[in-house]
């Protein structure tokens, strides 16, 4: 990590806080597991052998570095310069693999033989199932019943990879409920199982650890942009925000520059946008909730962003004004999804289509600038759903 990143996006405090957010709000049963995980992560990250092994895996297995693509036709249409960080080109089709490779290697180092994961869109579940197959581990993935239907393709992929997919039947039957089930499973199986959390959220050390594993996005993009922009940085760096892992990864590469950082949330899941702090799933952060503290169900066309919370570091970045958070509607997202396909021949995941939707809506504000957008995943998984939405 560069010193500049350290200054703005530093390590969390000893009690796992970014500013006033974060912490470790978990059942007592899980506290020792979180403490052991923190110790193991600190030791692994300080060990060059571990880091070399991870880099090799990311290069030779996952296909890193991912390129930055300049989008001439889209740029012409929007009236400003557009660069895409191509996380869609990673193995398994999204940024999720960066974090999963890191955590799976860590699980192996800790002697764990079984991976637990939650998934919304299925991309984190697929990445975890992939790592489990690669390392010869058992894998169980919790997924909301609603998401199992709208991301059917990814359920089949997970099964093919040897993972067991368990439907979460409670509450809104989406990502929030999948996290609840995964935490319950972790409480029961904490001795042999490793909880491979899929976003920059949860109890300390997860938000920090997941960010660290995704910093590769930002550091690569920083160098790639410098090459394209003659040593410069983009004016704006943008990404979609569910739990916030792909956004925190790309932000980390530019936190110490003048680039404006913009996270894009779905209107029906805008935790930062509503600015009400709360505690759920292990940390204090902004949280969609009613006036007595019951967590609200998010509403989004995109299974990966259909979540009422957000990772604590995003709450902190919003709080100190280093990043800003905007929201877009489902209808705008459907437009953004088609826009990239039509102008650049790239079908984006519905999640990152949120950032495209914001870029399209705010084209006047962005005129003449250079915008780097994190294309966090490819849209193959969403094609069946979009066939229905678009009525074909």
């Amino acid at each position: 990590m560069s010193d500049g990143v350290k200054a703005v996006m530093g390590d969390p405090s000893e009690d796992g806080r970014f500013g006033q957010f974060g912490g470790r709000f978990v059942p007592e049963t899980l506290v020792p597991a979180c403490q052991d995980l923190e110790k193991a992560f600190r030791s692994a990250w300080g060990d060059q052998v571990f880091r070399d092994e991870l880099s090799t895996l990311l290069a030779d297995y996952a296909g890193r570095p991912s390129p930055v693509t300049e989008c001439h036709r889209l740029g012409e249409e929007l009236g400003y310069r557009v660069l895409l960080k191509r996380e869609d080109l990673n193995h398994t089709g999204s940024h999720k693999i960066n974090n999963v490779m890191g955590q799976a290697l860590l699980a192996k180092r800790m002697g764990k033989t079984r991976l637990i994961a939650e998934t919304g869109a299925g991309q984190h579940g697929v990445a975890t199932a992939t790592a489990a197959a690669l390392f010869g581990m058992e894998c169980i993935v919790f997924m909301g019943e609603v998401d199992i239907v709208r991301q059917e393709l990814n359920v089949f992929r997970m099964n093919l990879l040897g993972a067991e997919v368990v439907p979460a039947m409670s509450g809104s039957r989406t990502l929030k409920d999948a996290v609840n089930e995964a935490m319950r499973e972790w409480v029961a199986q904490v001795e042999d199982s490793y909880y491979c959390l899929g976003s920059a959220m949860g109890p300390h050390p997860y938000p920090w650890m997941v960010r660290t594993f995704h910093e590769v996005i930002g550091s690569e993009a920083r160098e790639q942009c410098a090459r394209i922009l003659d040593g410069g940085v983009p004016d704006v760096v943008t990404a979609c925000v569910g739990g916030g892992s792909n956004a925190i990864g790309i932000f980390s590469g530019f936190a110490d520059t003048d680039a404006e950082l913009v996270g894009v949330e779905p209107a029906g899941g805008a935790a930062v946008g509503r600015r009400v702090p709360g505690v759920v799933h292990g940390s204090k952060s902004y949280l969609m909730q009613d006036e007595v503290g019951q967590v609200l169900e998010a509403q989004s066309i995109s299974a990966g962003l259909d979540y009422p919370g957000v990772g604590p570091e995003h709450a902190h970045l919003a709080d100190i004004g280093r990043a800003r958070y905007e929201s877009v509607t489902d209808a705008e997202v459907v437009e953004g999804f088609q826009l990239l396909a039509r102008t650049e021949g790239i079908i984006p995941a519905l999640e990152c289509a949120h950032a495209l939707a914001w870029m399209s809506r705010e084209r006047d504000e962005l005129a003449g600038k250079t915008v780097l957008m994190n294309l966090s995943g490819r849209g193959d998984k969403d094609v069946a759903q979009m066939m229905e939405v678009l009525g074909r």
Partner: protein
Amino acid sequence: MTTIGAFETALRARRDSGGKILVPYITGGLGDDWIETLHAVAEAGADGIEIGIPFSDPVMDGPTIQEANDRSLSSGTTPQSILNAVRETDLQVPLAVMTYYNIAFRAGDVRFANALVDAGISAAILPDLPLEETTSWAAAADEAGVETILLAAPTAPDERLPLICERSRGFVYGVGLLGITGVRSSLARSAMDIATRLKAVTDKPVLVGVGVGTPDQAVEVSTVADGVVVGSAIVNRMLSGAGPEGVAELVAEFRSALDGRWPGHATRGRQ
């Protein structure tokens, strides 16, 4: 030296008289007759009662208590409606609430602690607020005179248990197994282990809960522990529509068993 609150006082009284402690769990707002159930349970021999304030995302709870939560919430229950109902009734046993931290955090630690006192509630259990995160809440609770009951789990290393016992008020809640709430067919070995480990480091009442679902299991773990918390078994009765008498009947069975009056248990010790 901290003063001993009403919850711990009642539990100590039972223990000092040679008895075993019984704390049943009742989901607040579940059914129209839940307040009557509280009274029936108190009369059936509860030493204290834990009242669950339903939360949307109860990660420590299994299917039974989740279902009870959902039913209660969908009938319009709020934290305030539970506290109001409790305030207006007169119970002869001390009460604790069990809920998740966001309910207290959203109200504000001080306001929530005061609201408990105002409703006549002595203690609180917040299962997603482990020792390291208690500071803000515990300061408010101590100030208001609310006893904060902490959980101690089988996964805790030896050096952690005295710290938990030191900070816990009311009693120390030993988690009986690795897992969430729910009735199991037999008592986990971890229940005896955690009771033994806690009894070795504290003089506060040690109760075991989570996975204590039958009178037999309660008797077994109470050969070491000072008593039990019984949740899902009781809530199952509530969910099945047994009504106040049906629930009280089950509580009476636990009471008799713990008092050694249950057929077959009069002379039963640890095997």
